[in-house]
Structure formats: C-alpha cells, structure tokens
C-alpha cells in the first residue's frame, strides 16, 4: 500500500492503495466519486473515461501510480457548479436512456470539442468510436456534439 495524493476536480485527495490499482477504482471506491463507471476493465467500452490534464483517458487502464500531479477531471467536476455546455446539449437532444455509458460519452465529447471545436461527422464518429452505447443513443450523441459545437462558438 502506498499513499497517493491526487488532484481531482480541483480538490486534493489522499488515497492509500496499491500502486497498480486502476485510477477507476480509486475514484469510485476510495474517493467515492461513482459517476465514472466500470464497463469492461479492458479499455474497450469507454465507460470509465475521465480527463487527465483535460485529455480523455480510460481510467480502468491507468495505474494510480502513474497519475502524479496531473489534474484529474471526472464527470462530477465538469459543470463547475452548473452545467457544462456539452451537458446542456445532452439535455436538449435528450440523449441518455439507461445512462450507464453517458458519463464516458460526455467526457469523451468534451475532450473531442477541445481538440476540434468544429468536428465533421466523420471526426465525431472516429473520436467517439471507443464509447459503446448498448441502448443505441448514437444518433443523439452525434446531434448533441454538433449542437454543443454550434453553441460553444455562438
């Protein structure tokens, strides 16, 4: 067991865990932030997506020992007290059904729009390909990202 100091959503947290513990489990079990979900444990489904220094990563594949001083953002920290524009777009397009994949989808979408503020449909499809949705909300995810892109530059 080692002690790790993690900067999560602007706040410092201490975690006494094994160094190889995936960040996903530290977030969920140690820190208690359960908005980030476990889907496959193999980096294949995208449900565990968080940001490290603003970039989307699969937290089930990140050993906590490798995080260091990087800023972690989870779905809980996205809105800064309100709703992030992507979350607003998600509501406007009524994207979620069961909701399980949606934290990961939103985190990935935010990261995508930071890299590409005006993504083409092909770019949306490519960048979001790692996030599975079994309920089949893909058409609405596309529209929400396009809406957020329009409204962020409006």
């Amino acid at each position, binding site marked *: 067991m080692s002690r790790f100091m993690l900067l999560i959503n602007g706040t410092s947290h201490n975690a006494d865990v094994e160094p190889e513990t995936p960040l996903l489990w530290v977030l969920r079990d140690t820190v208690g932030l359960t908005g980030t979900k476990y889907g*496959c*444990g*193999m980096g*294949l*489904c995208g449900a565990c997506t968080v940001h490290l220094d603003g970039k989307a990563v699969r937290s089930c594949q990140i050993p906590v020992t490798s995080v260091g001083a990087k800023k972690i953002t989870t779905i809980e920290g996205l809105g800064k007290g309100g709703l992030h524009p992507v979350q607003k777009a998600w509501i406007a397009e*009524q994207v979620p*059904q069961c909701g399980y994949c949606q934290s990961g989808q939103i985190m990935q979408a935010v990261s995508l729009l930071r890299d590409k503020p005006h993504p083409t449909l092909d770019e*949306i*499809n*490519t960048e*979001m*390909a*790692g*996030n*599975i*949705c*079994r*309920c*089949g*909300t*893909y*058409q*609405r*995810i*596309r529209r929400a990202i396009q809406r957020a892109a329009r409204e962020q530059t409006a």
Partner: protein
Amino acid sequence: MSRSAAIDRRQFIKKSAELAGALVIGFYLPSNTEGALPSSAPKFTPNAWLVIAPDDPVRVLAEKPELGQGSHTYIPMMIAEELEADWRKIRVEQAPTMPSIYKGLRTGASGAVVNSFDEMRRAGAQARDGTVHVVRVTSAVDCGLAVNPDGVRAMTEGGINFALTAVLTGEITIKDSTVEQSNFHDYPVLRIPDSPAIDVHIVHSLEPPSGVGELGAMLVAPAVVNAIFAATAVRIRRLPIDAALLKKSGS
C-alpha cells in the same frame, strides 16, 4: 386492430375442401396485436388465404382491402418469395365479405415497425469484399397514440442500433459447454462509426397506445437481409451476416 377468427385446423381444411379441389393454405400475417395476444396459445387464425389451383395462377385472397397502404402488394410479394413462384403469376383478390371466416375485414393492416424496403435497398451492401455497411434505416411506426413522440423515436432508434449488433457482428459460440466470448474484444457490439442514419416516421393514430419498447429491434434483421438480396441476389439465412457469402456473389 385486427383479430382473425379462431378456427381450428380441422374446420379450415374442411372449408378448403369445398373449394373445388384446390389446395388452400391459410396463413397468418402478424399485425401489431402480437404483443397483446393472450397467454394461452391462439388457435390457428389465418387472415389470408392462398389458393394454388392446378391451372395457375396463384390466387391470394387477402382480407385487408387495398386502400393504398400496400396490403395487396406486400402479401403477394411475400408469397412469391416463399413459393419461389413467378411474380407475374400471383394474383391478389379481395377476400369475400364472409365475416364468419374473415374477421378482419378492414384496411387497418398497419403492422408493427415497417422498415422502408426502398431505403434498405440503398443500404449499401459492399458486395465486393462482403462487408455490409448499413447507411440508413427508415422506420415507420404505428404504435397507436404516441404519448411521447420523442420517446417513440428514441426507443425505435435504440432498438435498431441494438439489433444491428445481432445482424452484423454479435455471435455467441459454445465450446465444451462454455460460452467462448468474454468481453468486447471477442463480442463486438455496434459502435458509433457503424451506426446508420435513422429516420423514424410515426403513423398518426388515435388507437390506444401499444408500447414500443421492443419494436425497433424486430424487423431490422429481415430489412437488412432483404436489402442485401435486392442488391446482390444473395439470400442470408444465418446471423451474423457472413461476409464470405457476399464476397462469393461476385456482384
């Protein structure tokens, strides 16, 4: 919606024997009351009759009058396909007004989800390498009163995406009494790049709401394989689609 009379097979065969020695086959076209069938298995309830007389042509007695909704078209199409009969030899006649036999004598043949055949023909079966990309799915839903139309759309879209996994990639295999698949690397599910454009058209209805939770998934497989047939003349009889079958077609 329609419910045909529950006549048993013995009665039906008796009836058909009266029709001058012709072979009469009754068959049941699913209507959107499937979900509302009682828990006890219904008796044989034909709502269309097929008469194959020795002198040809194949006569279909369809109880649903044609009002432009296509009932007198899709019935013979399905017959021609199943019988591998010459399409030109199929004749559809309006069933006689005999309510004792034909209990569903009205135009309401709305069915469940009707995927547009023309659109699916343009679904883009990549016959060269056999890979199928479904580019667009068009769906018409008659679910009675759509209490929340956007909810109906969401459920239909979701069901279509869900079923496409089964059609395109989802396969479970058993070896030594164990399922071989374990995660998304060996059980691929539909991802956003392969998810088609989807149009949902809700048929205006004041019938009681009938629910759409499972509807979207129902006709995706037939629609996709029928589109593949239209594009390649290859019949797919097993899911998920085997690209090798389409590659062989050489079209």
